[in-house]
C-alpha cells in the first residue's frame, strides 16, 4: 500500500479502527469449547501494551456457544452509535458486531471504526466463509489430538495462526481495498413492521462483576464496591455507562389487542415485554464493555454505544427479526425510538419494512421541529395505529401492562384518535 499517498485522515481512521474476533470451537470428542481471541489493528486506541493479554483474558471467558443456543432468537449482526459523554472527544468509534456459526464453530467479531457506513451484510458474508475455514482447521487439529499426533497446546497455536491469517485478510479487504463500505445491505427475507418502542431515560453507571456470577450493580446503590456482593468475585474498576430507561411507550397495529385470545395462530406472537427484552439483548455484553474500557479508558469509558440496527434470526427457522433504533438527546434526557420488524407475524394493519424508514424520517423531522411524542405520532405514517401511555419501568418486577397486548390496550393515550 502506498503509505505516502494516503492522507493523514485515513491514517488516523485506520489507527483508530480495531477488529477483535473470538473464535470458539467445540471439541467433537470431549464437548469442551476452546476460545481463540484475535486482535487486529487499533494502534491509536490501545494505550496499554498489555491490551492483547487483556483481550485474551476477557474474551477467553465468554461463552459463545450459549449465545447461539440458549435463546429463541440469535443476534447475527448489530451496529451501535457512540453517544459521547464528553464533548471534546474526537475519536468516537462506531461499533459493529457480527456473529456466525458453522457446525461446532462459533465466531463473534467486533469491529470498531470511525467509519459510519460499514456494510454489515457483506461483512457477514465474509465472516461466514471464514468461520467455515476456521472450522476446518479446528476439526483437523482435534482429529489429530484424537489420533495422538498433536498436543492441545499445538492446536491452540495452529488455530491462532489460522485465525490471524483470516482476520489479517479481512482487515486488508476493509482498509487496503476499501471493500465492504457503503452500498445497500442485503435483505435476507422481507419483514413487516410490528411495533415501535419509545423509551426515555438517562445515562446511568453500573459496576460489572468479572468473576463467576457476571451480575451488574448500579453505582448509585453501591458507590464503593470492592468485590462482588454475590460471589465475592472481582469488580470492574471503572463503572460502565449504560442507558437506563425510565419509562416506555409502545405503538402497535390495531389488530394486536385480540392476538392473545386467538387460538388458531400457528405461532406465538411476541408480547410487549419480549420486544423490550429483544431491544435489551441487542446491547453489547457487559464483559465486552469492561474489556473495551480496560483496553482504552480514555475512549471507551467516555462513550455509550447505543443500539442502532440489529438482525436476529429465530433459532429453529429462517425467519428474521430486525431492529432499527434512533436516539435523540433532548435536554439531558435520551429518547430512543426503535422499530421492530418481523418476517413471520402476519396481522391486519401491518406495514412493510420500508414504512419503518418513512416513520424514522417523520420522527427526525418531528424532533427537529420540537413536537411532542403524541404530535409526532399523529403526524406520522403510523397514525392509524394504537399508542400506549408512558409506562414506568422503575421498581421491582415487570409492569403489568407490558405482560400482554390486551393489558396494554387498557393503557392507551387518551387524545389519540379512537376507532
Amino acid at each position: 500500500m502506498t503509505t505516502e499517498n494516503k492522507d493523514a485522515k485515513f491514517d488516523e481512521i485506520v489507527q483508530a479502527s480495531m477488529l477483535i474476533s473470538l473464535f470458539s470451537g467445540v471439541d467433537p470428542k470431549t464437548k469442551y469449547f476452546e476460545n481463540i481471541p484475535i486482535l487486529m489493528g487499533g494502534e491509536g486506541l490501545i494505550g496499554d501494551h498489555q491490551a492483547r493479554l487483556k483481550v485474551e483474558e476477557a474474551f477467553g471467558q465468554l461463552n459463545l456457544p450459549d449465545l447461539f443456543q440458549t435463546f429463541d432468537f440469535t443476534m447475527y449482526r448489530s451496529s451501535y452509535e457512540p453517544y459521547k459523554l464528553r464533548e471534546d472527544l474526537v475519536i468516537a468509534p462506531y461499533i459493529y458486531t457480527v456473529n456466525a456459526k458453522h457446525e461446532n464453530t462459533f465466531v463473534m467479531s467486533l469491529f470498531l471504526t470511525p467509519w459510519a457506513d460499514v456494510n454489515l451484510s457483506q461483512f457477514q458474508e465474509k465472516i461466514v466463509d471464514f468461520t467455515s475455514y476456521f472450522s476446518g482447521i479446528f476439526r483437523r487439529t482435534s482429529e489429530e489430538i484424537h489420533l495422538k499426533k498433536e498436543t492441545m497446546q499445538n492446536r491452540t497455536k495452529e488455530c491462532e495462526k489460522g485465525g490471524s491469517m483470516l482476520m489479517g485478510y479481512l482487515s486488508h479487504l476493509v482498509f487496503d481495498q476499501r471493500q465492504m463500505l457503503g452500498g445497500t445491505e442485503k435483505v435476507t427475507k422481507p419483514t413487516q413492521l410490528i411495533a415501535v418502542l419509545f423509551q426515555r431515560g438517562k445515562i446511568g453507571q453500573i459496576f460489572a462483576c468479572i468473576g463467576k456470577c457476571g451480575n451488574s450493580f448500579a453505582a448509585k446503590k453501591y458507590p464503593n464496591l470492592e468485590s462482588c456482593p454475590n460471589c465475592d468475585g472481582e469488580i470492574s474498576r471503572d463503572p460502565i455507562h449504560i442507558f437506563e430507561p425510565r419509562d416506555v411507550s409502545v405503538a402497535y397495529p390495531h389488530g394486536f389487542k385480540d392476538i392473545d385470545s386467538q387460538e388458531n395462530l400457528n405461532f406465538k406472537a411476541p408480547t410487549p415485554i419480549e420486544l423490550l427484552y429483544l431491544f435489551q439483548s441487542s446491547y453489547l455484553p457487559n464483559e465486552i464493555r469492561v474489556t473495551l474500557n480496560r483496553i482504552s479508558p480514555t475512549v471507551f469509558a467516555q462513550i455509550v454505544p447505543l443500539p442502532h440496527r440489529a438482525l436476529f434470526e429465530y433459532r429453529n427457522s429462517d425467519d428474521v427479526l430486525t431492529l432499527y433504533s434512533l436516539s435523540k438527546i433532548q435536554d439531558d434526557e435520551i429518547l430512543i425510538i426503535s422499530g421492530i420488524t418481523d418476517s413471520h407475524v402476519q396481522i391486519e394493519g401491518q406495514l412493510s419494512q420500508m414504512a419503518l424508514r418513512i416513520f424514522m424520517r417523520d420522527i427526525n423531522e418531528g424532533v427537529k421541529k420540537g413536537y411532542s411524542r403524541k404530535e409526532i405520532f399523529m403526524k406520522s405514517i403510523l397514525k392509524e395505529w394504537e399508542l400506549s401511555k408512558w409506562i414506568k419501568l422503575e421498581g421491582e418486577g415487570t409492569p403489568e401492562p407490558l405482560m400482554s397486548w390486551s393489558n396494554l390496550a387498557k393503557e392507551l393515550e387518551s387524545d389519540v384518535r379512537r376507532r
Partner: protein
Amino acid sequence: MEKSQLTKEFEEQFGKLSSRIDMVQRTQPETLEQYMPKLPDSIPTKLKKVISASYILCLTEEIYEVTFDNFKTDFLVFSSFLGFDVEKVSDISNEDFISIYLNPFVQILLIASDTFTEMLKTFIVELASGYSKELVRTLVIVNFYEPLFHKILDLVKVEIDLRFICAILTTTVEDFIDRKSRLKKGVQFSEFSISSLYKEFVDQYPLSQGQDLVFDMCNKLTVERTWEALEKLVSKEIESLSKSIETQRKDSLTQYKANVAREKEKYSDDYYVTMITGRLFELFVLERPLTDTLRTGIVNAVDVMIRRYLIDKHGYASASAEKTLTIACNLLWETVWELPQIVASVMDPSEIMAIMKADNPHKWLKDKERMFKLRFCQLLTRHAGRNPLPAVIGNAFIKMLEVAQKIKVRISFD
C-alpha cells in the same frame, strides 16, 4: 425440453475432448502403439487407444508432463474413486468411458494448470507491492485455490477424497515450477506422480471429507509444500516489479504534491474575486453606464462565485443563510476594497470630507477598514433580506452599486 446450462457445458466439453482424442488417434497411430502395451491386459483395445491418446493430448497441450506409467497409475487411481473397476471394464462403451472417467480427469488437469498461470501473476504483483507473505498466502488460497476446488467438485459430481484433489493441484503446481526451471536444460519428464503424493497426504492429513477443510488443506498441504519453490522461481520478477512499483509510487507522489499546490493556488480567494473584478472595472474605471446586460452579468457572476466557493471549500452548493452571507461579504469586500467609489457609498458625508482633508488618505482608509467592512456587510444583509440565495445577494450588490454610481457622479460634479 430445454437443456440445462450444466448439461450444455458438459456436452460441449465432452464433445471437444472426444473429437480431440479422435484426432490424435487418426494422426499419430505410431505413437499410440508405443504406449498401448503398457496398459493392463484387462482393458479392451479400444479403451487402451483412448487412454494413450489422452496422454499424448496432455503432453502436446503442455497440461501435465509425466511419464506414461505415472499417468496410467494416476488415472486408474482417480477412476477407482469414481467406481471404475479394471476387471469389469468390458461392460462400458467407448463414449461412456470418455465422458465418465477420462473427461473429468483431463478437465481437472486443464483447469488446474489454467488457474495456476493466472494465480502466479497475482502472486508476483501482491508480493512486489510489499504485502506480507502471510497475507498473500491467504489471498491466494481464498481467491484461487478455494474456487478451483469447488469447480473440480462440480466436475466430478461424486464425493471424492479431497486429499486426492489436493494432490492433483500440488502436482500441477510442482510440474509447472519444474517445467519453468528446466526450460534451459532441455525437455525431460518430471518425476511427480499424483498417486504417490496422495499416499503421502493420507499419512499427513487425517480427514478427507467436508468442504470446510478446503482452506486448511490447501494451506497445510499444497501451499506449504510449494511456497518456497514458487518464490524462488519468480524472485527476479518480483524484484524488478517492486522496483518499478517504487518508482511509480515516487512519481505519483511528486505529481500528487504538485496537484495539491496547484489546487491551493486555484482555490485562493483571489481566484473567485477575479470573476467579478472585470465587470466592476468596466463600470467604475471605464465609467460605462449600468446597462441591463452588465447588471445580469454581475448578478450571475456573484451567484457563480458564491456557489463555486461553497462547492470547492465545503463540498456542497448550498449552505445556511448566515454562512452564505458571511462568505459573500468577505469575497465582495475583497473586490470592493480595490475601488474606493463603492467604499464611498457606505461613508457619511462627514467622513468623505475627512478623507479629502486627510494628509495620507490611504492610511486613513486602512485604519478604518474594519468599520467600513462592517457597514458594508450590514447594508448588503439589509438589501438581501433574511433568507438569501446567492442570486439574491447579487441583486443586493447591484442596489449598492447603483448608490455608489450616484455618489461618484456627485463627487465628480464637485
